[in-house]
């Protein structure tokens, strides 16, 4: 039963969601809403599981004074702080019948002035990572790599207001040539390639979903059980 119950749950949930897409009426529409609510609850528990796992890994690092244990201590401290502020905001919201993320609540303040700026800082590094990845990737080692290099050159130059004004000012062209080439590349070959990939992805999702619903693929319950 340890293998069969998860497979049965997966099959029933998969079939209900698939059928409710075509028959949104009772009982499949209602079943889809109920299953969707259950999925939200299970996802919330999964977040708790991830949090406990992270806390355990960080705590082990701190206790053993492994490399980078001070960062693990910051992780634990910030986790506890956010939990305390979050729960107190929710408690206050329940008592005053107001949303817990209203302006003025501790949770909203932490989100606006701590979490959001830190996230923005983290993702600001992407610009430099893109530069270093591009420097490594755009080499003329083969025909495909050369094609990538030439395409990337036209798109990068076309997206930056650098060469086009110079060419127009010098009288070489009377329109934004590189921008036009970049737009054409992004509109036609790029979209065609993306659509081809999306068709393959859609078929792959349908095929792997069918394998999971029918119980042919069992990797989600722990290997070839």
């Amino acid at each position, binding site marked *: 039963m340890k293998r069969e119950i998860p497979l049965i749950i997966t099959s029933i949930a998969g079939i209900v969601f698939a059928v409710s897409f075509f028959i949104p009426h009772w009982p499949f529409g209602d079943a889809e809403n109920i299953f969707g609510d259950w999925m939200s609850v299970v996802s919330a528990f999964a977040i708790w599981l991830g949090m406990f796992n992270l806390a355990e890994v960080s705590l082990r690092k701190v206790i053993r004074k492994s490399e980078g244990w001070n960062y693990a201590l910051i992780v634990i401290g910030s986790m506890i702080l956010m939990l305390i502020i979050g729960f107190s905001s929710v408690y206050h919201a329940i008592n005053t019948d107001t949303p817990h993320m209203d302006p003025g609540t501790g949770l909203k303040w932490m989100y606006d002035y701590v979490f959001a700026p830190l996230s923005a800082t*983290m*993702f600001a*590094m*992407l610009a430099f*990572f*893109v530069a*270093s*990845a*591009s420097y*490594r*990737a755009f080499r003329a080692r083969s025909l495909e790599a050369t094609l990538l290099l030439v395409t990337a050159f036209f798109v990068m130059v076309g997206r930056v207001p650098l060469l086009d004004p110079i060419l127009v000012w010098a009288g070489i062209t009377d329109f934004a040539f590189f921008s036009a080439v970049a737009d054409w590349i992004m509109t036609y070959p790029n979209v065609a390639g*993306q659509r081809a*990939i*999306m*068709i*393959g*992805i859609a*078929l*792959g*999702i*349908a*095929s*792997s979903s*069918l*394998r999971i619903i029918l119980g*042919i*693929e069992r*990797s989600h319950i722990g290997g*070839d059980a």
Partner: protein
Amino acid sequence: FMGAFFAESLILAETGNEVGAIQIAGTAMPSQLPFFVAACDYTLLGEELFAASAYLSREPRQLGSLKGQDVGKGLFLVAMLIGLVIVLVGEMVDLPDWLYLAQYFSID
């Protein structure tokens, strides 16, 4: 890296590249594929991610589903080519109305 990734894909892949790790990535997010291709040693593009388990296990039933996937792709290709020819020819000559297949799939 296997699964759905958003903006964090390049951060993760570049960090692994900096420490010299061999990285294999697979995602169905078309917007992140270029970053993984640039930063990882091997990349599974879109449908290859879903075919990987069948390819590695070599189980006949899973391989059969891959075959079905390929047949489906072939059918889509043929349908697109037929539609392309009909639209191109239709721009040049007057074709009978029943040839415009899109009208049968609309809900008007």
